[in-house]
């Protein structure tokens, strides 16, 4: 099935962005190392559904999301633990805590499965937000491949102060003196495929140098800082 992104958009979307988003959407429909393409699409449907979930609404109103128990209102056959991670990261990223990750592992999800799931959901957040921000419907989810997960060559990862194991540092700095292999890239080192998918869409809007956009660096950094603050993102 063809990926239909930015259809009937009345605003000037760069063709490179349309092409990159369409390609990533299509690839999200393919099976990854630990989940099928059908699973990926279920994750995206579940992320969208989370805004209709009564448990998520009650948690948002609570002083701590962990003080509210219950069952999520789900639209897929993903496991309850996968649904919980997806709903939390979509509706309440500011209050994600280590226990969410540890609970996922305790309920049978591997750290690699967790990272692939996070990468898929985060990528879909970029794609959905841009569509909705432009007044467009979100792209229709694909059927997704039922081919079994592909597996992958075991990547090199290290413990380095995060909840998850990270890709190793390469010791290099970029043009502005920040580690070339920044922790935000190392964070998904367990599943290199989702690094590639996520940053293919991310780089359409933002890059550390030579921004591919028409607003100034100051304006872009102002927006980035404000989004990060609203989402209470420490990093």
């Amino acid at each position, binding site marked *: 099935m063809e990926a239909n992104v930015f259809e009937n958009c009345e605003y*000037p979307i760069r063709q490179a962005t349309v092409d990159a988003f369409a390609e990533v959407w299509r690839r999200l429909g393919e099976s990854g190392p630990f989940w099928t393409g059908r699973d990926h699409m279920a994750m995206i449907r579940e992320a969208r559904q989370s805004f209709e979930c009564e448990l998520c609404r009650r948690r948002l109103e609570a002083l701590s999301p962990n003080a509210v128990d219950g069952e999520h209102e789900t639209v897929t056959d993903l496991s309850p633990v996968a649904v919980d991670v997806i709903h939390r990261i979509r509706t309440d990223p500011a209050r994600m805590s*280590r226990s969410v990750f540890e609970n996922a592992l305790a309920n049978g999800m591997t750290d690699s499965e*967790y990272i692939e799931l996070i*990468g898929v959901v985060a990528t879909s*957040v970029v794609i959905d*937000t841009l569509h909705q921000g*432009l007044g467009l419907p979100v792209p229709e989810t694909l059927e997704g491949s039922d081919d079994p997960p592909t597996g992958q060559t075991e990547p090199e990862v290290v413990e380095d102060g995060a*909840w998850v194991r990270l890709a190793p540092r390469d010791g290099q700095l970029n043009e502005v003196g920040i580690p070339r292999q920044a922790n935000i890239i190392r964070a998904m080192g367990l599943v290199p495929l989702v690094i590639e998918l996520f940053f293919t869409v991310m780089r359409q809007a933002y890059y550390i140098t030579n921004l591919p956009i028409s607003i100034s660096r100051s304006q872009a950094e102002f927006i980035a*800082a404000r989004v990060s603050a609203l989402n209470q993102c420490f*990093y």
Partner: protein
Amino acid sequence: MLLRGSGEFELRGVMDTTIDSGIEHGRLLGQLVDSTISRRWEDVASIREECIEALGPQETVDAIAVTSAFNGITRIADATGIPLDAGPAEATASMRSQLAIDDFEYREKSRKYDQVDA
């Protein structure tokens, strides 16, 4: 750190709309970000038109694209508990303290939210 390195600005204006951030069209861009992140799509529609008038159509699309990109990337950081990179951690220590950003640190968040179970 990149915001500070990108020119003159008033840091407190990032979140306080009553303060002039010094960023060109900062107030309008802030409103666009706020309405988009809080999913107030009717507000987004009207602010988007204001932005097109003030900044131009391509600039408005790009502002929404940056907003969208960071709406995704913040979730990766929030879901993995990564620490700051060494360089920025050192360079922003004073600013983080001044703005109480350290309260968002993932060990602190986990300490705050994980002690309350249903």
